């Protein structure tokens, strides 16, 4: 494939992004998707919690304490995934000037921060029975804390620049730089011998955990993922309304509601 046709491909992609990336279109799309996402989330949470709390047997070592895993692990995973998503959105917005991507990135930040905070809190609660202390300066724990600070920094930077475009671009650079931390969190348990559990779920090998624990874990993880998508739609819609408050379509919308 020559340079030219690749260029044409990229151009077409950008055009596509711009077409469906129009805030008004996305507002409508997200509006129809939200109820579906929300009901899926509820379904997954209810079944996941049922299976995790009643169906799965107690662990032979940890007793029932391990059940905090069904909250801790999905949140820990989501904290990293949300960061990568935020960085990708931010990069798209920065490179191709797509406003919708800026908004998606901004909406992701507080969600990711709360996933991170939940992972930190549940992790330390779990740490007390497991390691005998709430907190150690272990590599995984520290890098997860760093992730939290990155989210906070991102939000602080957004908040202190009042030109929305400049705010988006400046924080995009920070988000992109911070991505380095994500592999560090993941591999920290291999690179340094630490207290924290290494991966028990990998794509390439047999899972090292009982199927009875695995099923609720997967369901809960999917639940948190759809929870993220639901909240993302909601937050994005309100941010779009605020930014476009001076446009005709929002005015009409507001008039038709009131």
């Amino acid at each position, binding site marked *: 494939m020559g340079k030219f046709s690749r260029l044409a491909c990229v151009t077409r992609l950008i055009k596509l992004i711009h077409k469906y990336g129009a805030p008004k279109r996305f507002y409508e799309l997200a509006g129809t998707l939200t109820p579906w996402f929300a009901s899926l989330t509820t379904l997954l949470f209810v079944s996941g919690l049922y299976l995790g709390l009643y169906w799965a047997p107690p662990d032979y070592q940890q007793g029932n304490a391990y059940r905090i895993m069904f909250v801790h692990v999905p949140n820990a995973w989501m904290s990293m995934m949300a960061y990568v998503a935020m960085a990708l959105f931010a990069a798209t917005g920065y490179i191709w*000037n797509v406003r919708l991507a800026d908004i998606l990135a901004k909406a992701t930040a507080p969600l990711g921060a709360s996933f991170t905070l939940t992972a930190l809190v549940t992790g330390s609660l779990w740490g007390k029975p497991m390691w005998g202390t709430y907190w150690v300066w272990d590599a995984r724990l520290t890098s997860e804390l760093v992730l939290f600070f990155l989210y906070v920094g991102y939000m602080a930077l957004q908040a202190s620049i*009042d*030109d*929305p*475009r400049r705010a988006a671009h400046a924080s995009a650079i920070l988000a992109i730089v911070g991505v380095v931390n994500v592999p560090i969190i993941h591999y920290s348990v291999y690179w340094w011998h630490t207290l924290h559990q290494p991966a028990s779920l990998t794509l390439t090998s047999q899972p090292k955990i009982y199927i009875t624990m695995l099923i609720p874990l997967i369901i809960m993880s999917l639940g948190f993922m759809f929870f993220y998508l639901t909240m993302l739609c909601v937050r994005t819609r309100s941010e779009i309304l605020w*930014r476009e408050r*001076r446009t005709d379509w929002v005015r009409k919308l507001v008039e038709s509601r009131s």
Partner: protein
Amino acid sequence: MSDPLFAVHGLSCVRGDRTLFAGLSLTVDAGEAVHVRGPNGLGKTTLLRALCGLSRPIRGEIRWRGERISDLAEDFTAEVAYVGHLNGIQGELTAAENLRLASRVFTRAGHAGQGEDEALARVGLRAQADRPARHLSQGQKRRLALARLLVLRRPLWVLDEPFTALDVASVTSLSSLIGEHMATGGLALVVSHQAFDLPGIRDFELARYCRTRR
């Protein structure tokens, strides 16, 4: 007819959530100068900064020798000299050092303009050459910023209120400097509220492209 050297098409700029101007078009060719006019707060500074690539406009294209300035990148900035509201002088260095370092950092090999002594003499700062720039008076600082134009020898001059703080004699001498620049095929974009005398300069009313109130 060949393309104009500098062509702007359909330019729109936004500050905060207000569109300052939209759909602005302008062409400037070798030897031409344009006086951008408009009341305070219209968006003249914003326009100039977009034109020399310091800020990304939200819409429109700016072409230099037929190519987009965003594609040219450093090859465009290598041909522009910008004097803004701020003088861009290091108060800690002497006047001569300021110019000498500017010419080192900002000129590609073989493109240097006048030496710094000549340039300082031209703007009437010969006596202040070895004084720290921070001790200069307001008008002397402005002259030093303008001396950079002579040292750099760039084809496109973008000047934002260059006459600020200049005394009467200096205003005249700057006008004739711009005249000489035009005569040697240079281009100039000038924003100024102050009247100045320069034959052949074209007026450009920014207000034509502004829809909203300030």
